[in-house]
């Protein structure tokens, strides 16, 4: 593909105690048809030998955190480090993301043909059986003219994206700062990319494919563990922030409520589920940390 090698890309992978998955993730990154110029692993204080494994690999940098700050905190650290190092694009990936061989090449080719200069570029994220992963389905922008124009060059405009094979441009980081590390897990990616894409352009590239190797094709609602607390709290913070406005905010609020109802209904213990939700609402209504 006709991508320019003058563009510098740093893959940022955040991990915590998933050494075997990380090995595969890094193998795939380093076997790219167009490899990234840098690969940075943010180790969230793993105790399973992750750091030793990464240190033993050529071409991979390691930043080891002294405590687990969650995926959100890890991506904030990684994005900041790569940005300060001067990379053009920061390519953000979970440690269970297995990118296809031409994934980055296709993303960069998408940048070249985009109808408007993009700030965010995202891959299509599939589960093990090749279906779209429910957690990472692209959030298409609701402007038909824009979609038609982008489709002519095999792109689709997006309104938000998850950190499972998503690139953010350095200029967007300069303008919008870093993702919200205090979210710990979940929704930090949506909050950040939606903030950027509220007034800028981003696209999903259908021929750039990444596999999200979760055990099941769950999403943040159907994954009914206590971690749902973070979704409730973070979405409230997101709704109070500047990622969405007007009708979008209302639609997001409605989906937040629907998610809570689904979560409570599907939970084995409704009492525990309601307690989780109430805790999330309480903390989400509190002042967001700086």
């Amino acid at each position, binding site marked *: 593909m006709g991508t320019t090698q003058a563009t510098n890309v740093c893959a940022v992978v955040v991990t915590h105690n998933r050494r075997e998955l990380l090995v595969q993730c890094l193998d795939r990154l380093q076997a790219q048809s167009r490899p990234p110029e840098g690969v940075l692993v943010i180790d969230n204080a793993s105790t399973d030998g992750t750091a030793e494994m990464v240190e033993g690999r050529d071409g991979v940098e390691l930043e080891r955190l002294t405590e687990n700050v969650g995926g959100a905190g890890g991506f904030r650290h990684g994005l900041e480090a790569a940005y300060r190092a001067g990379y053009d694009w920061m390519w953000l990936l979970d440690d269970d993301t297995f990118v296809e061989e031409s994934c980055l090449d296709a993303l960069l080719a998408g940048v070249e043909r985009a109808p408007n200069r993009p700030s965010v570029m995202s891959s299509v994220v599939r589960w093990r059986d090749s279906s779209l992963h429910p957690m990472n*389905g692209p959030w298409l922008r609701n402007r038909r003219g824009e979609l038609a124009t982008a489709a*002519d060059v095999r792109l689709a405009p997006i309104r938000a994206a998850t950190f499972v094979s998503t690139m953010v441009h350095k200029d967007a980081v300069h303008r919008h700062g870093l993702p919200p590390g205090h979210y710990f897990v979940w929704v930090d990616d949506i909050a950040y990319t939606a903030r950027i894409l509220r007034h800028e352009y981003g696209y999903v590239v259908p021929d750039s494919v990444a596999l999200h190797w979760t055990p099941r094709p769950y999403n943040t609602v159907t994954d009914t563990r206590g971690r749902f607390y973070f979704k409730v709290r973070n979405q409230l913070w997101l709704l109070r922030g500047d990622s969405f406005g007007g009708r979008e905010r209302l639609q997001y609020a409605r989906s937040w409520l629907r998610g809570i109802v689904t979560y409570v209904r599907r939970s084995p213990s409704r009492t525990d589920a309601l307690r989780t939700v109430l805790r999330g609402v309480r903390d989400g209504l509190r002042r967001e940390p700086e």
Partner: protein
Amino acid sequence: MNDVAAVVIGPQPERLRSLVGDRVAEVVTAASLGDLREAASGVRSPRLWLLDSAATPCDGAFEALLAQAPDPLVSLPVDDLDEPVQPELGRFTESDLPGMLDAVGSRRVPLRHSYVISLLIRRDAVLEHDPPDPRRLGRYAGTEWTARVFARTPGMLIPASRVRVGSRARGSLHHALRMARAGVWMRGETVRELSRTVLPSR
């Protein structure tokens, strides 16, 4: 020569007849969308290029449709600046995300319905459906008809095929109300289309 007949729909079809006549096997005319089936039954070509007589296909519009078979295939309505004309675009099948991404990867966008401005379709498909009903639905007759046709054979917007459209008359309130009862529009579309008929255009 290809196996396509152009059907020019609407008043003063001569302009388009001379514009597209040398690119298709034959050209027939229909006074309105309501006469579409009758016009289709009179041609031998297995495929039809349905054209609104007020529209002007851009260079390469027809070839871009031919290149993307199977039909039905719809051109992208654009203004004089080559920008898509949103109200004339029809509606995409946004609910089918995998289908949308697959189609975009082939430079197409799946449609739930569209206006009949530039549409490549099998003649049999035109003959096997009840024709559009402009007397009952006015400007929305093509929308209602394509919704029925695309429900059986998915329609695709081909952005590489562009057709220039001028400003078109708004739909009337009573036609819009009938459309709302036809069950083609979703809730948001119904509100928007009804408001378009009564509010001054922006």
